[in-house]
């Protein structure tokens, strides 16, 4: 069944055909001048440009930078969010007490802190990681709190009645119950972290694909703008694509997955 699932995610012939048709359509529109050549380079040019990029080393350094900033931030944010979320989720009054503060901080776009970060941490990796970390933190925190609440009280009372000590209860029961929520949070946070990384690269000049897009735009390299953009979109798909099977595997014991099979 797992292999079937994996196959399903791969594009079939219809998808490939459809992508091809879309490209040909845009090509036709550009060649006939219906799409302004000033704004839209020919898809063929963009693809050639993309081909040049992937055979050069600089492109892969950029990919590594973008991914690295996103994943490092994700790791840091998760490391803070999971224990904090479990703690808050276990103690409802504490969660209620700090909820207004969380609700206030959560919607602040991390981009708003970009200038401050540039001024204090500079335009290197570390500045970017602060922001990707912050964004991941909120995303995972909210789901970790919900996950900690998903503990079955009957199971909990059973463990208590058998005299299982509190820490062991957290390890054996609370964490596994919260895991589906936490992993969902991490999967979403991974996408968000990549988006934030590329955004701060474009706006702030941190190294990565976002910076390359901005540089191409300033050099008037339109094919480059689109080539880097497509590369970043594919990278986003890849991050999704990688995290979903990880989630599936780690949660194979969980009833929601068993039922799906």
């Amino acid at each position: 069944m797992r292999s079937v699932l994996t196959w399903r995610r791969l594009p079939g012939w219809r998808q490939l055909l459809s992508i091809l048709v879309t490209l040909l359509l845009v090509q036709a529109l550009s060649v006939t001048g219906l799409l302004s050549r000033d704004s839209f380079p020919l898809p063929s040019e963009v693809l050639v440009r993309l081909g040049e990029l992937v055979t050069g080393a600089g492109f892969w350094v950029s990919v590594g930078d973008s991914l690295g900033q996103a994943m490092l931030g994700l790791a840091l944010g998760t490391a803070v969010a999971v224990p904090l979320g479990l703690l808050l989720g276990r103690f409802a009054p504490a969660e209620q007490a700090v909820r207004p503060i969380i609700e206030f901080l959560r919607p602040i776009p991390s981009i708003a802190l970009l200038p401050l970060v540039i001024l204090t941490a500079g335009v290197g990796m570390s500045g970017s990681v602060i922001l990707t970390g912050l964004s991941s933190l909120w995303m995972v925190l909210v789901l970790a709190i919900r996950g900690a609440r998903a503990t079955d009280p009957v199971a909990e009372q059973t463990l208590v009645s058998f005299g299982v000590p509190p820490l062991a209860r957290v390890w054996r029961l609370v964490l596994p119950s919260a895991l589906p929520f936490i992993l969902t949070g991490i999967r979403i946070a991974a996408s968000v972290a990549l988006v934030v990384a590329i955004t701060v690269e474009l706006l702030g000049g941190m190294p990565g694909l976002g910076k390359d897009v901005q540089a191409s735009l300033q050099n008037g390299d339109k094919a480059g703008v689109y080539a880097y953009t497509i590369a970043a979109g594919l990278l986003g798909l890849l991050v999704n694509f990688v995290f979903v099977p990880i989630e599936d595997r780690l949660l194979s014991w969980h009833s929601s997955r068993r039922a799906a099979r």
Partner: protein
Amino acid sequence: MKRLMYGVVVPALVTLAVAGLWWVLSASSTSLFFPPLRDILSAFATNWLSADFASMVLPSLWRVGLGMLIGIVAGVGVGAAIGSVRRAEPYVKPQLEFMRALPPILILPPMILVLGTGDGMKIGVIAASAVWPILLATVDGVRSLEPVRDDMGRVFGLPWRARFRWMILPTAVPHIWSGVRAALPIAFVVMVASEYYSSVNGIGYFVSQTSTSFRLADMWSAVVLLGLIGVVLNTLVAVAGRRLDKKFGENAHD
């Protein structure tokens, strides 16, 4: 009584305590980047409790509002069309998934090439970022009609428009709403980012201006404002969501 205590009093006290702590710890701050809360609040009062609110904040809200509206109309329209044609999905799915995975900020450079750097570009970027979650949620929503309900509509001879109006649309509304909820923070971020990139007004512009001229208290006041706007918007969205659930939710009532 106990609920009031834990639900309102304690959270309020804790919030005040944290704000107080911030106030005290930052009171003697000489750091350029982390000014005293006192300065931030007085900057907040001068910047946002004045006529400047209209010239700096309203343009931002207008862009988010119009961008979201365009995103919703386009997303629901196209999503409903794709969702209704069962065979269409595999042909458009890769393109849609790609657009959703694309970091929204990257819509900005092409938009600049097409629309320049004015308001149209910003609204266009916001709309083009917000549309994907709404569109995909609408496709799902239109698809999620119970098969029994579809059978019922056919047996009792409901014409297509009646099935859409009375069965498909109400089924899709909660899904569409969750798409809107996902799109709103994206639109918000893209608004700030696009104004940060190039603008003559708006919150993002204000943040970029004040920080490059080292008016950090002013910058922090904008961050506080963004948090407050976020709280207000999220509350509105939650209230609207509960209303929609009450009207269209399946088993929210049991």
